[in-house]
């Protein structure tokens, strides 16, 4: 097992590309180390990307925010502008694990680990975030919802890794929210989760929306019909009921130790309604 600490993205990409055995990217390590400990993975090479220049920075740009792939989730809520623009994304990232885990874990890692229950992923999908993927050939962008390929699998190719996540610029009168269901108040994996991101007009009518569900299918879902159902409304009770029904219907969950199909399906609707209410209020709707 080898450990490398490249200082440029190019160097990192070429290390990953050239490795004949199993190469793993190390950012926060909060998933990788658990898997190593359990004997689920046995890396031949670990590429620690944290020394790459700029990869631990949050930048406000003309088009929104660029969040370096190695920014620990705990650093997100220390950035006031980000919290103001994307409260739902920040609260989702700050629900991953404990304070200790948040001191290390990253949204990029959360995404690449490709657990359907990852907390930050539905929030990023609802936000319309993109990832910047780097390889020795250059870089490309991909919508967050296109990154996971299945449980524990992602669409990155050999030699590729994520260097940043881009959040779009915020339109006025917008709000997002993320809610997850866990049995305790902390420390659990989401049994079902939902993120809603929306924009309203001067009259409080929703003009744009994105709704995403987590832990109800093999990957987080972007539920377009749910967004459609609330666009053009002021999120009245009938709309909320419809939203809940659509979200419940979109679920393709499994029975497991954390919850039943029935439970996940019901609660997905409940969370969608509640998340939409919060997002609507945050957008300034009444």
């Amino acid at each position, binding site marked *: 097992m080898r450990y490398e600490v490249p200082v440029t993205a190019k160097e990192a990409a070429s290390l990953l590309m050239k490795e004949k055995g199993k190469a793993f990217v190390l950012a926060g390590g909060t998933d990788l180390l658990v898997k190593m400990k359990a*004997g689920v993975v046995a890396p031949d090479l670990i590429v620690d990307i944290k020394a790459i220049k700029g990869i631990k920075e949050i930048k406000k740009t003309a088009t929104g925010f660029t969040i370096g792939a190695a920014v620990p989730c705990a650093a997100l809520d220390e950035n006031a502008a980000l919290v103001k623009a994307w409260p739902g994304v920040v609260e989702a990232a700050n629900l991953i694990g404990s304070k200790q885990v948040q001191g290390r874990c990253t949204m990029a890692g959360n995404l690449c680990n490709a657990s359907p229950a990852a907390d930050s992923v539905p929030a990023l999908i609802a936000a319309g975030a993109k990832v910047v993927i780097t390889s020795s050939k250059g870089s490309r962008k991909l919508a967050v919802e296109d990154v996971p390929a299945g449980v524990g699998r992602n669409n990155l190719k050999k030699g590729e890794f994520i260097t940043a996540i881009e959040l779009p610029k915020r339109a006025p009168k917008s709000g997002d929210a993320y809610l997850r*269901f866990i*049995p*305790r*108040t*902390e*420390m*659990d*994996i989401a*049994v079902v989760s939902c993120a809603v991101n929306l924009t309203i007009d001067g009259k409080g009518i929703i003009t744009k929306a994105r709704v995403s569900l987590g832990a109800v299918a093999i990957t987080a879902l972007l539920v377009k019909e749910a967004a459609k159902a609330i666009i053009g409304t002021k999120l009245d009770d009938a709309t909320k009921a419809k939203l809940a029904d659509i979200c419940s219907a979109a679920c393709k969950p499994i029975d*497991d*130790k*954390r*919850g*039943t199909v*029935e*439970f996940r399906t*019901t*609660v997905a609707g*409940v969370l969608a309604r509640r998340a939409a209410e919060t997002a609507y209020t945050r957008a300034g709707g009444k």
Partner: protein
Amino acid sequence: MSLDSHSSDPMNPGLVERKFKVIGSRVARPDGVDKVTGRARFGADASAPGQLVGLVLRSPHAHAQIVKIDTKAAEKLPGVKAVITSVDLPDYTNGDRSMLDILENCMARKKALYDGHAVAAVAAIDAATARKALALINVTYKILPHVTDVDEALKHTAPIIHDHIFTEGTPQKSEMPSNQNKHASYGHGDVEQGLKEADVVISRSFKTEQTHQGYIEPHSCLASVSPDGAAEMWVCTQGHFVYRNQCAILLGLDANKLRVTSSEIGGGFGGKTHIWAEPLALALSRKANRPVKLTMSREEVFRCTGPTSSTSIDVKLGVKKDGTITAAFAELRYHGGAFPSTWAELGAQTAFACYDLKNVQTISKDVVVNRPKTAAYRAPSAPMAAFAVENAMDEAAKAIGMDPLDFRIKNAAKEGTKSSYGPVYGPIGIGPTLMAAKNHPHMKAPLGKNQGRGVACGFWFNFGGQTCVDVNITPDGNVTIAQGTIDVGGSRASIAMAVAEELGVTYDHVRSTIADTSSLGHNDMTDGSRGTFSTSMAAIFATRNAITVLRNRAAKTWEINVDDVEWKDGSAHPIGKGHGNLAPLSLKDLAAGAGNTGGPIAGHAEITADNAGVSFGTHIADVETDPETGRSLIKRYTVIQDAGKAMHPSYVEGQYQGGAVQGIGWALNEEYVYGKDGRLQNAAFLDYRIPVCSDLPFIDTQILEIPNPNHPYGVRGVGETSIVPPLAAVSIAVTNSTGVRQTHIPMSPPRVLKSIQDAKAK
């Protein structure tokens, strides 16, 4: 020394009257500084020169015959110093089946009996090598049908796990092997007749799932066997003497050749009263001829060390409209994991212990299943029984339109009550704790939306047992205590307080340590809430013996009769005529002169401390349940319990709070989840959900002191009773917040939501 006898009012048997100087204060514990600075040494914190790393290979099957174990490749791996299987642990138990069961649990013999059952172990120069070696051991299994549910195991169609087990205690001798290892019955009166006299009969069935003690420190030991057969072991345990005795038997050693030193213990709650991997570490060390350190992973702790039973309980209560209970019946089915046990029987004894009943019967069925061996967990078996009985009590009260608390007060046991399990009670605290609950401001506090309140009570026997203590006076006039019971939560402080009190010196002159097994006589475990109760008693007696020596030394110094020497406030005083001009001799004076008056000064006591004094508690829980998700949160919680005499009130409160929160976790979220394949699916803290700090409010406590007439200071055990009422109190609260009777613990959100939906559908 006298205790005020209790008053004739059965609801107020009287309080300790003696004025104490040290007892009842909140001194700092001797291990405090070490524990806040990281110096304290727990099980995994010790090392020995040349030590190897021990690891255990465990069965992935719930039930399987072990056809063959091939260890050759592992043995050949460089760095591997020993590989053992059951062959290396021959049967020295001499026909003692219960010891053989312990051995078989530590290492599977012919069959693997549960997921996680040890089948082989290795010792290697480092962890990486040991892990590789485990992977090289080739075990051929023949998979057998398994059963993990207690009710399923009793069915005729269930696979029989042990063909040597026949049900013990049935009216007719059983002729077929069975998964039920024991049948027992308790009670008095005529339940059938009582049910006929009732105006209302409540009949309900309840289930509770398996939980783990969840101590934060995994099991760890460091074993060293030398070629001459003498051995040493450093281990985290609740009872190093018992570990010594059992390991010696299983390894074929004389007990005096195995010296066991206990580490600081990072929680046990009953789970560290049984030996698990310690004999394996000793056997590895013997084979490798090097010290072996064996530390379990968290996953191993969950998969193969003592969870509690899952249970299935039926209750029937007959009640008259005026609140008289005419009949009480319960059948309790508990499993002991893969080995015979008596956990159901214990449940049957405790089930109705809070009440004064004319007609009562409990039947217990102890069952084996393909799960890890069940261990004691804080007041073992009582919480589940209380859950079932207290819910039936609540339902009965509501059925006759009586306040549930008043209903309990009316039927509470009192001094002179013949308990449902046999003995007649002395002065007890159930009535006073119920009255204190009734008068508690918590009962009058308003409830919010979706909130419900539950009240429930609970009982625990408390144990005494074998204990010995040495009290030594140091040459500079200070005091050391050697105790043999493990300190799990501050008992060294309490014991030192008792000695200081008795000796009439201040606490800072007295220090207690835990002696190793070669330095003191046998001591039972710290279990059954016996630690502080029995050790303080032995310490008080040992101190009194030391005081006799001190008085003799003073008499010798003064050349007067020992009867003319009185011990008071830490000094010898002359009494009687003609000694008026003699200045008192302090402990320091006497210690300094000890060399000339007969040598070192010490006192010893060896006792079997019976009559630990039963203990009762009443809890009040407020819960808020989200009707759309079924999730419940505790909003307010109050524990009221009888301590006899609280030696160190902070530590008593800590026991109340800790037990209550363990019970809350059990009530709401903790459970073992087994798959259809009989494998445990949630062997980690991530999905075995013990309460976290943000799940809880402050836990209010109220300590009542109804002295135990059998302890010099009136002390009762306090450690366990606090886990008995929470399952019941919280479930009654959720019943009230949702309007649906909760009969299955834990009340996880999916379960509660389903109960709400099912009730709506009806």
